[in-house]
């Protein structure tokens, strides 16, 4: 469906491809990446792989990270 979030069946935000919750999670991922990069000097892909191992990663953030990894 065109108006659906790329990850879940919720309607997507205007002008975006994700619903508000997955969009928020994506923004949090980007912000967290800056901290990870500074702390461990790692790239985006490695960051995504690392955070997926953590049980405290939020559900929406996990779904976004999985989807980003799948997209490559």
């Amino acid at each position, binding site marked *: 469906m065109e108006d659906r979030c790329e990850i*879940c069946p919720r309607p997507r935000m205007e002008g975006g491809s994700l619903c508000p919750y997955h969009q928020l999670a994506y923004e949090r991922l980007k912000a967290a990446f800056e*901290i990870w990069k500074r702390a461990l000097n790692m790239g985006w892909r490695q960051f995504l792989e690392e955070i997926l191992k953590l049980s405290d*990663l*939020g559900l929406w953030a996990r779904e976004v990270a999985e989807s980003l990894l799948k997209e490559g």
Partner: protein
Amino acid sequence: MKRILVVCEKPMAARQIALALDENGDPREERRLGVTYLISRREGLELLVVSAMGHLFTVTGNDKGWRYPIFETRWVPIHEVTGSRRASQHLSLIEALAKEADGFVSACDYDVEGSLIAYNILAHVCPRERLEEAGRMRFSSMTREALLEAWRTRSRRLDYPIIEAGRARHEVDWIYGINLSRALMASLRRASGCFRPLSIGRVQGPTLNFVKEREVEIGAFVPTPYWVLEAHAMIDGVKYGIEYERPRIETEREALEIASRCDGEDGHVKALSSRRRSIPPPHPFSLGDLQLEAHTHYRYSPAATLKIAECLYLKALISYPRTSSQRIPPTLDLEEILKGLRRMRPYGELAESLLSKPPLRINQGVKDDPAHPAIHPTGYHTEDLSPRERRIFDLICRRFMASMGDPAQLLETDAKIDVKGRSFHLARSRLLDRGWMIFYRPFLREREEASPTLEVGQIIEKVSVKPLRRYTGPPQRLNPASLLKLMEREGVGTKATRAEIIDTLFRRGYLEGPPIKLTELGLVVADTLGKYCHEVLSPELTRRLEKQLERVQISEITSTQVVEEAINALKPILSRIKEREFQIGLEISKALRASSSILGLLGPCPKCKTGEMRIIRNRSTGKRFVGCSNYLKGTCSLSFPLPQRGEIRAGGQCPQCGAPIIILKRGRGTYRRCVNPRCGHRGEGGLGG
């Protein structure tokens, strides 16, 4: 002989009141219309002591049509709405006894609800001139002395400002609840043709939003790394943990650098400091404090704690529990209560230690409640207590005594240890005097820490330092007690209603847990309201109304003004919903469909092969199970039971029987298994747990 009808709130309260008021302590029990009442004799009067069953009257609309907006209200006997036979019998008995009575007294709990319960009954059964002469007993505990004093000092008039506030609260809540809920349901019906019960209310809205805000933070949470230095020092053959001056190091490089520089090196004590700290005793419990403490130590929900506390109150063991006060008035005879506690086995020595060191002084809290003092024991005792009652009673007694204890004295010492130019700390604390902690010991976590004797300049040999990677954690999920505390802090709801509101959100299917988790349905409702009528989710609106209701209680404004103001605030919200009814309904409908596909679908039906196996909740029991989507068409009735606790997600199809495999997350464990109890296959790939 003159007869006075004494109206009480509950049967057990009626029994205690009749017993206290009867001059011989032996009231006569009578039964009429299937309901028991008691007759006490006092001062040449015959007192007909009768109980309600909580509210016998309720608010309803003026017509029976299903429409909104609807702003006209009326009060009717509750059995006309619920069909309760018991309520009808109680009211019939009171009507019959009222005809024989020459005077009327309200002896319901002294608060808004109690005053309103008695007023509604008396206004229904009394002739107008008698209602104006009806008296009011005011008491904060059910002890004989308190009840006799309440009888002796009863007012010759009902507490009308409190009653007005109660009527206004019920009317405003009804108007908000019925209109907003109907608006949501009508929108859904208009857009999708489906009917689904959806509800929201004046206090439910902001409470739901508190949970949603937390849920969003948890769902979008991304942990970030930091490092701590785990350091140890051997002093006189004993290993002590020491802390690096910075609790968190942001980069791995820096953490490794410090560790490699300091690990295995000698340090020296650079400075020593110590200070005495006094920890004041706690204040006595308000209801919110008690509910939080009972949840912390026993995991009792706020509603359960309130229920237990009410039983203790009705047994005359504690004061009235629905109080927001943390203060004890100077008129309360502390000595008499302690003498009572001294007779109880677990508290004998503790009470004696307070009695032997007068003067008795309570550490008063900040919050006050004009109607009732903080929760405290009465000094009465009974062995007839359930284990849960005994625990809450113990908590209250110990807290009450602790609030009269001396401050505890703590000695805090800190040794600054320099290792290769980096500062580490050996911090210790030792209790010098337990003070009030003696009374509250079972509920405190005391740690005895060994503390070395050190001197400035002393060499600390071979300090070990290891860098450890840690991650930031998400905000904690709310539990019923912390949600209640949050409502209290934000001024949402009242001490009497908060626990019930939380329970209602669970019953509506908006929340699950504990720990509390927002369901997809809860998220849909909160999202829709947030988009189209955010005021309903804001604590501001309900907080303002609470303030207005408080002003009614002190006769600054009338209940009519408050109800009118509430209606005026609601009208634009409802017209906004009405204007966009179709759009709102469409969004709810889409979101509900989406939510059912997010959580509800578990895979194809192994029996009919065309249906989808989905999680369904039984509307009457609220229990969940798996059923085939073709059940409604009458073509397939396959169903399986499900565990009632924990989060369920689809885990594929069972290779043995074809039924869905579920991934169940409960507590810290994650389990994987086939839903078919006859199969019992554990699925592919163990998840542990």
